């Protein structure tokens, strides 16, 4: 039987987080009353002219550099001509054969394999408005989004020597997640797939293993989460294989992912190449990029996720998995980094941050950079555990309390008298009381049912309101029960 191998291309659109739109001064913001953030330029009113937003070009160049692209010394905008009611000029100012960034890559690791996914181009364009369909065969258009700076990042298939392409649904998801993470680190976009500030359109084809020539590709739209990307690509790969195995032929088309039914369905055929009549935008002048400017931008690129993960592993001796979790967002990574720096035990800090901290962040929906906790909180809590002032279980209670109130752990411990009891006399009394009250269990234990030790520890801890030193409890119980 023929074995098939997939070829997956990714076209990702990212809305840049600039103050104003790409070619006018209107504010960039999600939502808002329809058509309240518009002007003659982004409404495409007759006579209006575009002016390039320098900040958007900066953010995009920074991104292209972070994606290991080369930057054009001169780049121009083109007009992409097509008619659509959400496109106020009926052309989109975009880039064509002279993109700002080209020939880069994104490093991913999926399924234990490390890959450098080749990027063909990074270019700049303007977003369109939004069609709002209403009942009764009526449509309205909201142009708030019209003219928002949009960056397009396209992978290269086949990749050049030394680089790779995406070949599975898992890699597709990993590529997107890594890309999103890089963009978050760069602070160029809020990259929210649900809100559409990051949109991805994979194109997918399969071919008999070893065949050089690509199969017919389909494009998937409406993938609004990483999960949807994974499932959509997976579904499409299987669907195409089924079609081919049945002796059919894959049709070149755009397919829409239906999240509720977990299937892709045909949207429109793309057998005929759309004619965009690209030509250089005469209302704008060429952009010239000199080396100093590029170097300056380069120097503003922060430590990127992969570098950060590697540093965490090396400097703090963290396992890969923990380092990945901690480097997920720049805010979390910075938070951990600061805690680790003030602590003697970065690994223990990592456990607390990936454990209790993230649990509480998720449970309360608090953004990491809005937490009341500071590195000082975490480090002094660890100190209290180290010194034996509190035990680990009590520490969790203290952690939650300081997360909620922002009080320092020592104050919480004092206020609620949570100091660990290490006084053998007091613990011994509790142990004696428990043994006396549970003679049946004592007998069973002595008859060899040793797992009951847990039960006795629990009873003693309850007796001491959780404050007893667990080590001492264990030791005393063992000697008394043995006797």
């Amino acid at each position: 039987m023929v074995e098939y191998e997939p070829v997956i291309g990714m076209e990702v659109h990212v809305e840049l987080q600039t103050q104003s739109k790409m070619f006018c001064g209107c504010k960039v913001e999600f939502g808002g009353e329809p058509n309240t953030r518009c002007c003659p330029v982004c409404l495409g009113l007759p006579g209006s002219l575009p002016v390039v937003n320098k900040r958007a070009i900066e953010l995009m160049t920074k991104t292209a550099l972070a994606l290991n692209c080369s930057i054009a010394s001169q780049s121009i905008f083109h007009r992409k001509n097509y008619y659509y009611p959400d496109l106020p000029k009926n052309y989109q100012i975009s880039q064509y054969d002279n993109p700002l960034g080209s020939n880069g890559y994104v490093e991913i690791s999926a399924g234990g394999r490390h890959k450098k996914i080749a990027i063909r181009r990074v270019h700049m364009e303007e977003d369109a408005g939004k069609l709002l369909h209403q009942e009764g065969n009526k449509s309205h258009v909201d142009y708030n989004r019209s003219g928002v700076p949009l960056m397009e990042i396209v992978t290269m298939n086949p990749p050049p020597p030394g680089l790779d392409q995406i070949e599975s649904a898992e890699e597709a998801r990993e590529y997107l997640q890594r890309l999103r993470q890089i963009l978050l680190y760069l602070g160029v976009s809020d990259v929210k797939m649900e809100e559409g500030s990051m949109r991805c359109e994979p194109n997918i084809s399969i071919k008999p293993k070893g065949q050089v020539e690509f199969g017919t590709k389909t494009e998937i739209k409406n993938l609004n989460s990483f999960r949807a990307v994974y499932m959509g690509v997976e579904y499409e790969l299987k669907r195409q294989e089924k079609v081919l195995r049945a002796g059919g032929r894959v049709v070149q088309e755009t397919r829409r992912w239906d999240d509720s039914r977990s299937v892709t369905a045909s949207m429109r055929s793309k057998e005929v190449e759309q004619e965009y009549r690209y030509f250089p935008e005469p209302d704008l002048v060429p952009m010239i990029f000199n080396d100093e400017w590029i170097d300056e931008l380069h120097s503003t690129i922060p430590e990127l996720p992969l570098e950060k993960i590697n540093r965490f592993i090396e400097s703090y001796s963290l396992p890969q998995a923990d380092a990945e979790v901690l480097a997920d967002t720049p805010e979390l990574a910075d938070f951990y980094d600061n805690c680790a720096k003030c602590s003697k035990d970065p690994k223990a800090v990592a456990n607390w941050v990936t454990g209790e901290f993230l649990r509480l962040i998720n449970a309360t929906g608090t953004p990491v950079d809005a937490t009341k906790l500071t590195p000082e909180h975490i480090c002094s809590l660890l100190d209290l555990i180290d010194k034996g002032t509190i035990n680990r279980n009590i520490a969790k209670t203290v952690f939650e309390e300081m997360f909620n109130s922002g009080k320092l752990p020592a104050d919480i411990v004092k206020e609620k008298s949570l100091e660990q009891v290490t006084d053998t006399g007091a613990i011994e009394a509790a142990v004696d009381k428990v043994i006396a009250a549970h003679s049946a269990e004592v007998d069973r234990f002595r008859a060899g049912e040793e797992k009951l030790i847990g039960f006795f520890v629990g009873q003693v801890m309850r007796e001491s309101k959780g404050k007893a030193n667990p080590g001492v409890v264990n030791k005393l119980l063992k000697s008394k029960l043995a006797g």
Partner: protein
Amino acid sequence: MADRLYELTAHELSDLIKSKQASAVEVAQSFVDRIDAVDERVKSYVTTTPELAIEQAKAVDDAIAHGEELGPLAGVPGAIKDNMNTRGVLTTCSSKILYNYKPIYNAAVVDRLATERVVTVGKTNLDEFAMGSSTENSGFFVTHNPWNLDKVPGGSSGGSAAAVAADECAFALGSDTGGSIRQPASFCGVVGMKPTYGRVSRYGLIAFASSLDQIGPLTKDVTDCALVMNAISGKDPCDATSLDVPVPDFTKSLVDNVKGLKIGVPKEFFAQGTDPDVEKAVREAIELLTSLGAEYKDTSMRSAGYGLPVYYIIAPAECSSNLARFDGVRYGLRSKDSSDVISMFNKTREEGFGAEVKQRIMIGTYALSAGYYDAYYLKAQKVRTLLRGEFEKAFEEFDVLITPTSPTVAFGIGELADDPFAMKLADVCTIPVNLAGIPAISLPCGYKNGLPIGLQIMAKGLDEETLLRVAYTFEQHTDYHKNKPKL
């Protein structure tokens, strides 16, 4: 004095207003009355704004009464070609597709004139979307040449040129994509300048061909031309193609001196089809300048002959994209009986655009299509670069080039309607200037059968000063600018 104020030039009116010999309101009223008296025959205006004019004039009089320091155009009535946005005032491009369109913003030049306290009397007729050379392509009506009402005023700024010639305004703004200021100026016997590309902001000028369009003045004499240039020139942050260069005081160039001036006379601009009387008048003008100390030499510009075909690729290509936005979705005409959005687009454009506009959109769409782009658009751009280089070379040798503005004087209304190619030949001398992006001026230099002949002077990029100096000198030694049509 007060009964024929409309006959005066802008600078003469300015002097009267400033010295309080006439109030701005009297001046405005004089023009309003003049429009009432003659526009029925000339039909220069698509829209007149008499109330607005009087209101603006009152404000000028108040300012003068308060001792405010005002510029030289304060209280001077001007007209604006109807392809420039005027907030709250109809702006139609003489197209049915923009019928009833009132913009929400002013073109940059309109704002600049407002800052100068110019009084605006109306919006002038043009060939629809500035496409044409006779104003016969207006979607509304034809404008008549004040020198002979059976003749065209030229185009596309025919309304502006006719309004200046008929004393329906003291000056007007036009736009020039392939000769649309200079050719009507020539036909109507007034002064018209196309500035260097980028000298004047295009923001708010409804685009025909973005890389060629340029706004400029149509005036009764060269002094007024310099005054209006002072008012409208300069970098605009809203127009990325406007040039960030210092603007000289153009009135400083109003000097009667052409000693040592090197004039080139490229023979390609006197090609077949040039009326011998036009050529004669132009040669006489050159002789006059040489008698005043200039030197001239015949020269050749081989690629100038390609100007017309190059223009008829680039301009339609850009226009096919620029005019795509007129689709009935947001403003202007929307066809009533459409069942879905595509048919709304199609029917709106079918009903809204005239034949000439449709033809150019189709040519441009074709020229940009995959498979034709390289053969047409790209090749045209290459020839354009050659042409530009040839002009640069010519200006290493010459200070100015002098040619006829148009090969003929004004033709009859309807005369060339069935011969679109002959009509396009009317722009053969003016088009290369737009392709090269250089400035040029047209001023009257003679008559044939009572119709004015235009002299075109070109200079290198950003050298409007030399144009003004040469034109001013010529004007000082001739009387053409003083003659008026009898209406």
